[in-house]
């Protein structure tokens, strides 16, 4: 039981990163390998702000804002030129982005592990003994983010325009939607969601430039489990992966092979049901 709850807690974090992946996929049909490093970098920004004397929540909001702008910049400068390039080029660019962010973070902040404060009280909330307040809080934050995104995409004109631009760029352009900017906006939002994920997981795994490689893998697994084009699927997938990882890690295979769970999940899902449990099945025409 404890393992399941702990799994739900980490699952919340995988869910939010998976959500960011799914958002970029929906907007651009690309899987962003640099997502984890973007989140890591944002978390470092938050750390700097907090160390400069800012309170957690103001720093949190400011970081989300900065991440949003950074995401837009990355799309405009780095991704836009390769929009219609072959997959290999795109993957190389993503990997380039990944290593640049990773090493710049290491350069500025050094590779020593830093602790990151949690915004939630140290004693358990509502008398639940199995889960720390931070874990509960992280789940709460993930659900809030999901709700906000849902409302944004479902009920605002900009959200509608973004969905349209992703689904049918040509027609969207004809009715006056600026498709290029919608993509940039998608990247900005994904970076912001990633920043939230980073700040939620940093108190648990501590801050260091390589903190995200494993988490990114779980997020991939989560996104694939739920279906790479389904936000709800990503969140469900995140929780499932979190629980699986913890339960299997504790009882079946031991802590050492936890990452392999993600490997097996990713390959298994891609083989058995590439569209995931909540995704649409795509048919390609010759």
């Amino acid at each position, binding site marked *: 039981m404890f393992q399941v709850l702990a799994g739900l807690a980490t699952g919340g974090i995988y869910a939010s990163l998976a959500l960011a992946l799914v958002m970029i996929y929906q907007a651009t049909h690309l899987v962003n390998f640099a997502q984890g490093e973007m989140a890591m970098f944002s978390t470092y920004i938050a750390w700097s702000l907090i160390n400069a004397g800012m309170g957690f929540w103001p720093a949190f909001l400011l970081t989300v804002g900065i991440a949003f702008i950074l995401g837009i910049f990355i799309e405009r400068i780095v991704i836009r030129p390769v929009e219609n390039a072959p997959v290999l080029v*795109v993957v190389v660019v993503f990997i380039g982005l990944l290593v*640049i962010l990773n090493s710049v973070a*290491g*350069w500025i902040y050094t590779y020593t592990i830093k602790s990151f404060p949690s915004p939630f009280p140290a004693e358990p909330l509502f008398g639940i003994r199995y889960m720390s307040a931070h874990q509960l809080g992280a789940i709460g934050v993930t659900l809030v983010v999901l709700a906000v995104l849902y409302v944004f995409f479902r009920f605002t004109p900009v959200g509608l325009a973004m969905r349209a631009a992703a689904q049918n760029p040509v027609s969207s352009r004809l009715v006056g939607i600026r498709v290029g900017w919608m993509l940039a906006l998608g990247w900005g939002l994904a970076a912001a969601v990633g920043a939230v994920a980073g700040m939620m997981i940093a108190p648990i795994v501590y801050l260091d430039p390589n903190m995200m490689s494993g988490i990114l893998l779980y997020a991939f697994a989560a996104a694939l489990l739920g279906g790479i084009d389904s936000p709800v699927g990503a969140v469900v997938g995140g929780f499932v992966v979190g629980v699986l990882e913890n339960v299997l890690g504790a009882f079946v295979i031991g802590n050492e092979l936890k*990452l392999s769970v993600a*490997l097996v999940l990713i390959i298994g899902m*891609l083989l058995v049901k590439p569209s995931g449990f909540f995704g649409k099945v795509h048919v390609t025409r010759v």
Partner: protein
Amino acid sequence: MTKKNFLTLMILLVVACALPFLVSNYRTFQFTLVLVYAIALLGLNVLTGYNGQISLGHGAFYAIGAYTAAILMDKLGAPYWATLPAAGAVCLVAGFLFGLPALRLEGLYLALATFALGVSMPQLLKYHHLEAWTGGVQGIVIAKPEPPAFLRDAGLVLNADQWLYFFALAVTILMFALGWNLMRGRVGRALIAIRDQHIAAQAMGINNALYKSLAFGVSAMYTGIAGALGAIAVQYVAPDSFNIFLSLVFLVGIVVGGLASISGALYGALFIQFVPNIADDISKAAPWAIFGVIMIAFVYLMPTGVAGAVRLLLARKKSP
């Protein structure tokens, strides 16, 4: 092969043979690693450059090759030269088996699956049930091979570094000759056809599934042999030296050297061996920042890599 090409190759060979007598032992060791990387890059290029299957996890095959060599030498007392074919065979099978499910994955998804393989490899190597073989976190230390006695009897005195360099050089030449012949023949054309238009390739009677998984196997075999050679050169294997960044280094190498090019593997290997050394003086993190920037710059500005640029220069010189 034209006469001029042949001449260039001969000059290259003479330079390569003279090299260990002109530079220090440490430099010789570094050039040995260049040869090792060149084999690995050639392997990755067969898969990614020629066949268009993106692998972000070739470090895993390199690791399998290295561990095969180390285990054979350390636990079974095999001679070092015998470990190379063994590592190649193990990786051929491993690559072929990984290639079978990979058949169903295309583009980004394959990149994702191989990325997962690359990330989880160090953990698999540390797995405690395998510790008796792999040495766990500590890894395995292997002895440096001595130059064989017949060379000494023939009056040729080499130290261990120099001998290892020549050994690696011989293996590299063999592997490049094999690769060159494979790629310019029927198999190479089939691989390129699958990369460019897999449906048309199938319509022309190419067995896509067979060739694609074969490409995976051969590619892994090259990388595995490189891994074994690398392990012998470094005399040490440990799980954490085979992390995801090793796989990414290989990707940098083929992008910089030139995709779908045999000579590109050599340029790429020189690049990934020596650029970090230069960049290391600036900061510990600098090599990767530079790698990243160069990688992106290359796909924007010089998508055919150094090999493509060299070809272009030569062509321009010929027709002024």
